[in-house]
Every structure is written in structure tokens, then in C-alpha cells.
């Protein structure tokens, strides 16, 4: 019998989220359907965000929700789009592969767990240590000012923050953005289907009519497609 008063609620929530995260992660491995995999992945990532909140990294947690989970949303959409056709919804894996992967995974897990338990200081936290929320110091650090260490009077003076990595990541993201735009770009290309559709428009009644009327408005299809795909 556990006295209710003795329950550490932080631990309870931790186990709740941890179980959700781990369970969903395992479910990702187990699931066959790619859309379900994506769903489990989202749940796992979301639960991990909860763990971040518990660990006092609220900003990272919110970031995880916004970017990671949002990014996975795109994955999901692509998954739906590409694999909604029956042959790709589930591609079966040979049982042998599964067993092999299981063995190797178990070995890896064992190694990781061994190291996780290897440091006694990590097992138990000190009592009564309350973490300061880190959003503002983190934000300032990203701008190049380390308020946390300055206030703590860290030896060696104030360290510069993460301005440079922040900028690098910004540029990196920009490059990726450009790359994504390149991927989704629309280009005019003559393919058999284009010829067929163009031919089916002969006699070019509507085209000629549009030309005669004088203003052929843009159909805006590219915007749609650029966004929707």
C-alpha cells in the first residue's frame, strides 16, 4: 500500500509520458500501415514533448510540438499522398529481418541501459532543487547573451551565447526551404499526357475564345498545388 501522500506526482506524470512515448515508439516499429506509423510517431513525439516539459525545458517542449510534430505532419501528408495506393500502404518485411533487427536492437538497448545505469549521481536527484524556467535565458543565449551564467558569476567571465549556431541553423533552414521549393516547383514540360489534353482541346474553341475576349486570367492552379502538395 502506497500512502497517497507519498506519491511523487512528477514521477507519476513522468511514467505516464514515458510509457506513451516508448509504447508508441515500439508501435511505430510494429505497425504495418504507413499512416498509422505516422500517427504513432506523432504521439510518441508529443509524449516526448511532455517529458521535456517535466524536465523543465518548456521552450524545447513547445518547440518540439511546433516544429517536430508539425514537420511530421508534412511527412504524414506525403505518406498519404504517395502511399494511398494500395501496393504501398504496407510493404511486408521478411520475418527473418525482424528477428535479426530484434536481436541487434536488444544488444544496443542493453548497451545503452548499461551506460544509463552506470553513473550513480544520475539515479537520484538532490532534494529541493527547483529549476528556473529556461525560456528567457535560452532566448537571450540564442541572441548571444548568457544571462544565466553571468548571474551565476561563472568563472572565466561571460560566455558568448549561441548566436553563431543560431545563425547557421537559420541559414541552413533557409537553404532547406529553397530546396523544398525547388522540389515542389512547377515546370512546364511536354509529356504524353499534356499532349493528349492539349490535343483534346482541338478545335481550340475555349482557348481561342479566351484569346478573343482578351484576358486569360491565371487559374491559380500552381499556388494550390504548391501549397497542397
Amino acid at each position, binding site marked *: 500500500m502506497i500512502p497517497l501522500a507519498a506519491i511523487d506526482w512528477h514521477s507519476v506524470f513522468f511514467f505516464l509520458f514515458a510509457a506513451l512515448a516508448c509504447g508508441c515508439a515500439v508501435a511505430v516499429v510494429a505497425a504495418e500501415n504507413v499512416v498509422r506509423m505516422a500517427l504513432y510517431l506523432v504521439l510518441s513525439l508529443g509524449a516526448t514533448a511532455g517529458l521535456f516539459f517535466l524536465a523543465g525545458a518548456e521552450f524545447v517542449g513547445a518547440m518540439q510540438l511546433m516544429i517536430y510534430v508539425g514537420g511530421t505532419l508534412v511527412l504524414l501528408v506525403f505518406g498519404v499522398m504517395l502511399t494511398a495506393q494500395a501496393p504501398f500502404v504496407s510493404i511486408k518485411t521478411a520475418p527473418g529481418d525482424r528477428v535479426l533487427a530484434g536481436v541487434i536492437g536488444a544488444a544496443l538497448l542493453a548497451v545503452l541501459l548499461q551506460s544509463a545505469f552506470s553513473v550513480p549521481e544520475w539515479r537520484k536527484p538532490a532534494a529541493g532543487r527547483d529549476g528556473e524556467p529556461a525560456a528567457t535565458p535560452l532566448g537571450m543565449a540564442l541572441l548571444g547573451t548568457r544571462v544565466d551564467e553571468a548571474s551565476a558569476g561563472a568563472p572565466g567571465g561571460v560566455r558568448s551565447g549561441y548566436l553563431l549556431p543560431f545563425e547557421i541553423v537559420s541559414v541552413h533552414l533557409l537553404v532547406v526551404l529553397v530546396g523544398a521549393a525547388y522540389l515542389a516547383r512547377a515546370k512546364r514540360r511536354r509529356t504524353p499526357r499534356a499532349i493528349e489534353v492539349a490535343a483534346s482541346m482541338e478545335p481550340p474553341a475555349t482557348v481561342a475564345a479566351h484569346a478573343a*475576349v482578351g484576358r486569360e*486570367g491565371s487559374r491559380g492552379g*500552381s499556388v494550390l498545388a504548391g501549397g497542397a502538395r
Partner: protein
Amino acid sequence: MSHVADDPRIIEFDVRTDEMLVNMGPQHPSTHGVLRLVLRTDGEVVSEVEPHIGYLHRCAEKIGENLTARQWIPYTDRMDYLAAMNMNLGWALAVEKLMKYQVSEKARHLRVLIAELGRIASHLVGMGAYGLDLGTFSPFLYAFREREKILDLFEEACGARLTYSYITVGGLTADLPPGWLGRCEAFLDQFEPIIKEYHALLTTNAIFVKRTANIGVMSRDLAIEYGCSGPVLRGSGVDQDMRRDGEAIYTAMYDGYAFEVAVMKDGHYPRDHEYPPVPADAVLGDCWHRFFVRMLEVVQSMDLVRQSIDRYSACKGPLGEPLKLAEKIPAGDAYLETEAPKGQMGFYLVSDGSAIPWRVRARSSSFSNLAVAPELCRGCLIADVPAIVGSLDIVMGEIDR
């Protein structure tokens, strides 16, 4: 195959995608009844539209060959059930043409009065439902509010609100009840300022314009090639109106009436200073213009109603009785097209001299107007399909018959 120029609307993407076949209808909110459109789409872009019709086929023409001419009148009610008065009129005139029968002067003016009111009622539905197609609900109810008042008037005159059988071969079934004209004028006076609200809600609404202007552009030639008629034809700038250009027996009905056909001439609509200006994006023949022509015709019909009220009340004497139920029709055939709200409604009958026509045939405008839809929808977005089909203002009862 000879070289074909690139169609600028065909855009290929890196990502390989498959086409999709989608059924729009027959149970779909925006297909105006039991129309079924099969869309071939590439994402949101529609590459082909194929209308499937016949869900409402009732063998109306065949029934007409088993009934006397006057008995068939209620069946015409069910063709364009939104403008049944005009259907009655079309059939009655066709039969009268074969019989070379002339109704009394008073009946003639009453017919104009009723037919034009029917046109207003029909256009109100067309306008309201079009708003519904574009995703705005309120104009629909505003339109129906006014339509109800017209239906009240009709009910008073003939006892029915939808299928009137009021205008009939050889005249009308009854004269107007006392005080009707006053109530009609009161309605007109009350209705007139409300049209401005419709313009504010729809015609000049920026989103409405964005959704309709330059969408489904139908050139003059295309409209003529497909045999479009009515506001659909006039929306493409073709100056044709059966009330003015039709056969003598029909145009005689409008003798002495002043009206201007609602069509854009030299870049101007008649009396266009009274209406909102044509938006910059709109192109003659697009959805906006079709819609706008209907709005103009509402005003035009109100004008005609007022004129006919004056003339009708100036006519002394009896209205005249309609022909007998089983009046014999002289042998021969006759075809007559009238300007119904949706377009040119043609009736054809062949008689062998008996009271029952040997052959009855109807030519409905919605049928031709719908036929042009695949041409207009090619390359548009899915959301444009309701906008285009709605702007054609079809009614399935007329198409399937």
C-alpha cells in the same frame, strides 16, 4: 498528330500523381437537383467534366401524346418548376399558333404580367442558389423571402404556389381577384429598393467577384455553337431575346411594351449607370456576367410588370374563356420558342386533326446550357465547378422531362 502549342494551363510537377475520378452528384449539395457530374481531376484541377442526366425522366412528352392540349398544361408546370407560368405560356402559345387562335387584349396583357412575374421569381432562385454555390447562405434566404411574396400573389390568382396551370390554351383559367393589382404594385414598390441589397451582398462583393470574374469564360461563338440561350447567351454578349426577336405570335404579345434587352453592347449594359460598375477582372462571358444579366432582367421584368398593370387595367371587357378541354386541333404542326427565364423554351406539336396531339416535343434551354459545362470546366479548379454550373442556372425537371 500535328504540332500542338503548349497549353499554359497544363503544368507538370516533379511529383508523380494520378488522376482521380470523382462523382459530383447525384446527391451533392450544389448540383441543383439530381444532376451527376463525373469529374476527372488532377489534384484540385479538373481536367474533364461529364454530366450524366436522366435521373428525373418522367416521359412527359409521351404523356402529352395521350392527353388533349389543355390537359397537358399541368405537365408543363413540372418542366421548369421554378418558372411554371412561363412553361404554361410556351405550350399555350404553341397550340394557339397551330390553331391560329388569338386571345383577347386583356388576356394578352395579363399573360405578360404573369410571365414577367414568373421570370422574377425564377431569377430570384437562380441568384440565391448561386450564392449558395459559392458558399454564402444568406442571399438565398433573402431571395426566397421575396419569391414567397410573388408566390403569394400567384396563389391568390390561381390557387397554387408551384404548379399553377394558370395560363392555358386560349387564355387564362381565371381573371385576377379584386385588389390583386394593388397588392402586386405594393410588392413591386417594396421589392425595388431591395435589389440594391442583392448587389451589395453579391454583385459587388470582392470575394464573389474573385470567385466569378474570369471564371468559366464562354465566348460568343462558343455560346452560339452550343445553342445556349437566355441569360447564358446574353451573358456572352449575344444580343438575342425571343420577346423581341421571336415569332410574330409571341412578339405580338409584347407589342407596345418598352424594354431593352439586357446585354452588353459596346462595353455597356442598358442603363448601366444605375447599377454597380463591371469589375475590372470580369470578362464578357464569364460567370459574373451571366449572373449580372439575370439581375438586370429582374429589373427589366419589374418594369414590364408595371407597364402591363397599366395596360391590363385600361382594358375593359371580359378576359375571355379559354378553349374547351377537348378542343380539336387542326391537322398540321407548329413549333414555337418563347423566352423562358432559363432561355428559349420551344414546344413542338403535330396534330392529326383530333383533340389529342399526335406528337409532342419540348426543347429545353437548360439542356443546351448544361451541355456547354464540360467545355467551360476544363482546366478549372474543383471549386469552380459549382460556380460554373450554378451560373448556367439549370433546372433538372426541364432537362430530363
